[in-house]
């Protein structure tokens, strides 16, 4: 009985501290999660193709499809990345969108989307903002970027997409199917 009381005390203290810490934490979360706001899987497919051709390396070009820029500016002041379907990813691939592989180098070297570049999230995250800008400055901020990782439930693509979007890229998209689905569909890969 005494032990039961002590257990209760520990849990109550834990709850009190947890609630307080969450309340004063600027990154606190709502107590009840009503829908999975963390996963982007449920994002509506708003973007469509309107026959543009992208040039990721032309930093002067502003001619991105308006439809591909339909993302919303968020409170932090950057355009939120959006999840895209396999069909749209393939379409964008054919229109020369910049594919970014968020996995590590070994995984990238073994197989990646044809023409994609490798920006391992783990490394990118640890770089300073200046280094990140340095890396990304050769790409068009108004160009269309598609970030992917392994597929399944991998999340580094989401994380990397947000980091890229924070640098001011206006059409960052996340392809959740990843290399796994891409390969299964027989779409172009390297090496």
């Amino acid at each position, binding site marked *: 009985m005494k032990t039961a009381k002590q257990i209760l005390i520990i849990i109550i203290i834990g709850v009190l501290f947890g609630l307080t*810490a969450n309340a004063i934490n600027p990154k606190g979360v709502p107590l009840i*999660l009503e829908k*999975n706001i*963390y996963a982007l899987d449920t994002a509506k497919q708003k973007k469509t193709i309107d026959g543009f051709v992208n040039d990721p390396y032309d930093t002067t070009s502003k001619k991105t499809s308006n439809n591909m820029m339909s993302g919303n500016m968020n409170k932090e002041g950057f355009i939120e990345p959006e999840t895209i379907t396999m069909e749209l990813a393939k379409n964008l691939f054919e229109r020369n969108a910049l594919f970014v592989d968020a996995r590590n180098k070994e995984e990238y070297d073994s197989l990646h989307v044809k023409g994609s570049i490798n920006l391992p999230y783990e490394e990118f995250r640890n770089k300073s903002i200046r280094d990140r800008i340095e890396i990304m400055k050769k790409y068009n901020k108004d160009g269309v970027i598609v970030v992917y990782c392994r597929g399944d*439930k991998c999340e580094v693509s989401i994380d990397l997409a947000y980091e890229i979007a924070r640098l001011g890229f206006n059409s960052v998209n996340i392809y959740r199917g990843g290399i796994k689905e891409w390969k299964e569909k027989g779409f172009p890969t390297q090496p």
Partner: protein
Amino acid sequence: MTNFLSNKYFQIALRVVLGIVFIYASVGKLFRPEDFAKAILRYEFLPIYFVNIMAIVMPWVEFFTGVLLISGIFKKASSIIASISLVVFLIALISAFARGLDISCGCFSLEETSTKGDIIYRIVQDFFMLAGTIIVYKFSNVKKIQETVSAEEVN
């Protein structure tokens, strides 16, 4: 065996080790409920309504459990809480493994991108820790009880 398990110094060492692991595992999560909630979501284990509240409260309970284990206050209570949490983690880990979820554990770091080998490693680790917390629970007061019993016999 009982003698060894209930040895005062063995008990202290065990509690300190377990306590450190609990504190270590919780500290990184105390002020990052969102990242921890994501880690919990990856398990597809809890009903979604409970995910945030778990992410808010669990690290703090873990943290205090660790502190109490080390300090030796509320030994029974803290070892019971530790055991229950470890059983819950075990069920979550094993079910994730059985369903073939390729997720990172979220046990210590919230960032680690791990492979299935890692989950097996965590499961084994969890079993050892559970054995430890059970030993703390069962044997922490054996000496005292024996002394009480012999004292009663004398009377």
